């Protein structure tokens, strides 16, 4: 029974009409509840010429559903003290409900309603489209967002689901009719290929009963599978974009990487943490900010998804300093690939990563993120329980080898965006 109350374990329940259902206990003392539907509805599924559909649908799903127009839905959430949030990614889209634990069954009903019966009211479609146009402009004009977009364009070939950020273009948005959005929803917010993760103060059987009741009419074909285009991105090497009138230059170095279930992932995770992923301790933070005084932020990320991934190292700095900072990022990348870190450095970062697990149990929302992550990647039920021992089995040489593979130089792109003329 102790295991049933352990928020670091997930429980795979029998599927409901093809919908995978996962249950997690709430952390001790928490009074809230979270549930997330994850569907094969990311922007990687946008048809060519119709880019932006996945993001628009994801936004509209949380706007209005069933008997609730957008105002009524907002009031319904306010009355419950609950929130609905959404996330769209290349491979999938998520919708999450959060609220008081004592209302978890009612809130699960609400999640089921918005996922299954969004309204796509014409005025909502128009509003969401206008908001997306502004986000497209922002992505072009704002150095940090532009740098991320250009990095992805540089790494991945045309047609690859990871190549963009899903916002599409003014032309593609204009082509999206209400009917095409309804069709996207029908084909991608499905039970087959979908996942429901519930973090609630309830046993597995109660969660499954509630899931069956709420999602009983949820039908649809087995969700589609992503097709990954092969080849290289737009162009390797250094790509610069002179955006005048801004104050800071944004730098991104990145390349293709591994999938989350790749056996090398634990060692690659540590390599990234040592390089720039672990706040304050990482080499990039220490060298660029603490010793160099050259930037406010310097870090790295490893985006390991279901079918593949990418890595990036990043910093924001002054127009007169960006070349020095790029050289620093580059040299730290070479070092992590070529030289094994010391066992002390690996220990420090590893124990930090292990030690922070209790911090994820402060609130239900934080614990829930762990469950969604493990369930989406179909990791073992005790993944987060065994994660410490997995990390402790990684040797320093394996960290270096993983860095070569997961933070590799092959296909690496450098993107520089900002007021370059001011240098």
């Amino acid at each position, binding site marked *: 029974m102790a295991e049933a109350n352990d928020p670091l374990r997930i429980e795979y329940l029998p599927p409901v009409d093809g919908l995978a259902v996962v249950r997690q206990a709430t*952390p*001790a*003392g*928490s*009074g*809230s509840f979270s549930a997330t539907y994850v569907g094969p509805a990311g922007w990687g599924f946008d048809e060519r010429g119709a880019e932006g559909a996945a993001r628009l649908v994801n936004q509209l799903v949380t*706007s209005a559903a069933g008997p609730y127009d*957008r*105002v009524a839905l*907002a*009031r319904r*959430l*306010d*009355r*419950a*003290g*609950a*929130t609905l949030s959404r996330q769209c990614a290349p491979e999938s889209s998520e919708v999450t409900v959060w*609220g*008081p634990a004592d209302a978890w069954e009612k809130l699960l009903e609400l999640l089921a309603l918005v996922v299954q019966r969004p309204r796509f009211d014409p*005025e909502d479609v128009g*509003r969401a489209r*206008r908001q997306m*146009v*502004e986000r497209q*402009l*922002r992505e*072009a*004009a*704002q150095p940090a967002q532009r740098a991320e977009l250009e990095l992805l364009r540089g790494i991945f070939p045309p047609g690859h689901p990871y190549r963009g950020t899903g916002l599409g273009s003014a032309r593609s948005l204009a082509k999206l009719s209400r009917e095409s959005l309804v069709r996207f929803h029908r084909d991608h917010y499905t039970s087959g290929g979908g996942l429901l993760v519930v973090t609630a103060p309830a046993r597995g059987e109660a969660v499954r009963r509630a899931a069956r009741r709420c999602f009983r009419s949820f039908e649809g074909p087995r969700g589609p599978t992503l097709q990954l285009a092969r080849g290289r991105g737009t162009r390797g090497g250094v790509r610069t*974009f*002179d*955006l*005048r*009138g801004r*104050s800071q230059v944004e730098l991104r170095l990145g390349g293709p990487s591994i999938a989350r279930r790749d056996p090398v992932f634990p060692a690659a995770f540590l390599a990234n943490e040592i390089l720039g992923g*672990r*706040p304050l*301790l990482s080499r990039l933070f*220490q060298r660029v*900010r*603490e010793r160099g*005084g*050259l930037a*406010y932020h310097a870090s790295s990320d490893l985006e390991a998804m279901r079918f593949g991934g990418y890595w990036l190292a990043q910093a*924001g*700095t*002054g127009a007169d300093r960006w070349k020095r900072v790029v050289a620093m990022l580059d040299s730290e990348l070479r070092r992590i690939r070529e030289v094994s870190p010391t066992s002390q450095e690996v220990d*420090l970062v590893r*124990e930090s990563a*292990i*030690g*922070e697990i*209790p*911090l994820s*149990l*402060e609130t*239900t929302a*934080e614990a829930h993120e762990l469950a969604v992550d493990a369930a989406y990647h179909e990791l073992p039920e005790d993944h987060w329980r065994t994660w410490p021992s997995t990390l402790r089995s990684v040797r320093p040489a394996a960290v270096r080898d993983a860095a070569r593979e997961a933070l590799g130089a092959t296909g690496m792109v450098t993107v520089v*965006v900002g007021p370059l003329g001011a240098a």
Partner: protein
Amino acid sequence: MRSPRVPRPPTRGFSLDNGLRVLLAPDGRSPTASVWVWYRVGSRNEHPGITGASHWVEHMLFEGSPRYAKGEIDRAVVRVGGELNAFTDADFTAYFSTVPREHLGVPLDIESDRMTRALITDEEVARERTVIFSEREGNENWPEFRVEEELYQLAFREHPYRWDPLGRREDIERMSAEQLREYYRRFYGTRNALLVVAGGFDPGAVASEVRRRFGPLPEGGEDVTVRVTEPPARGERRAELSGPGTTPYLQLGFHAPALGDPETPATIVLDAILGGETRLFSAGSGWGRSAEHPSSRLYQALVDRGLAVRATSDWRPRSYPGLFTVQAQAAAGVSLDRLEGAIVRLLDRFAREGPRPAEMEEARTKVRRAAVLAYEGASRTGFRLGFFSTLRSPRFEDEIFASILRVTGREVRTRARELFRPETRVVVRYRPTGEANGG
């Protein structure tokens, strides 16, 4: 009838002989412990020449003290899986560390060491100067930051709320290490600090630990009352900025009450009705204001009608009278004049007619429901307890919560009439120039 109260863990408060105030909020079920130190110093304590000093000192408190050489504070907390950070506001500076509960001694030791003994060397100040510039430049990349900075500069001619806590560029360029050390010596210390510990710990043992570590510190730290009062505005003030951006953007500002003023509960309800939420009590993530609120007045008048893609209001809790702002980002093709006209008409109408009864009920419901889970987790508990205690008192949260729930529609209308007067309005508009986007 008993006044409604915000559900929160029981707390125990005491003071040390050197003046340090301590609040303990134990929760035996929590796997973490969160340590917060709040200093009653912020950009309100600065003056031209040293604007940004509070924020810079905050950075320097991570750069070394007698027991922790540069980088060791970060290392000590992060190596046990903890997280730490700090933030500087106009009215306060707060430092926090949340750690697995068995490591509570680590942040207690750090905070006791740097409360009075931060080193702030010339060398580290010089290095940090470019980091501070970089932080500011990162913000300047966003038109929203530039507009807000200009808005406060226009609205306040005397009061130190005039400048942003990041400080002015020219002051960051010139400020010396000695000026920062002097600032630190004046404002940091036991008399001007509040220590909050929340989460999983034994209160008796931690009280002893706090006395042992913080008791020997010398008495010090000045809580300075800002004597400057902002003269009443006589006429609208406005400015227009231009630069790279997406669509036109604007902010309107109106002089608004301080947190403890009697008009504040009605101002908070006004904020909830116009913008859809209030900073003090909002469901979900805590203090931020990121969600869309389709039931709010501004959203319906501007976003639903195709004039804007985002629109909200914001009243920030401040020790002294601050600003109530309205912000909107135009939809593509909508001019600044049209957007501003629509906002002004909405505010005028609201001031004439006041809220509908259903809107009042919705605002109360939002606040009441958001309060239920406001204290989930040790970190959020440390934040809320420290915030209310630093700006007012530990009991103040309950007082204002009850007051908000008692506000009437008539009071909200009166508040809107007093607030939205054209002669005290401040407007800053941002016109995107269509700069080449480097494509």
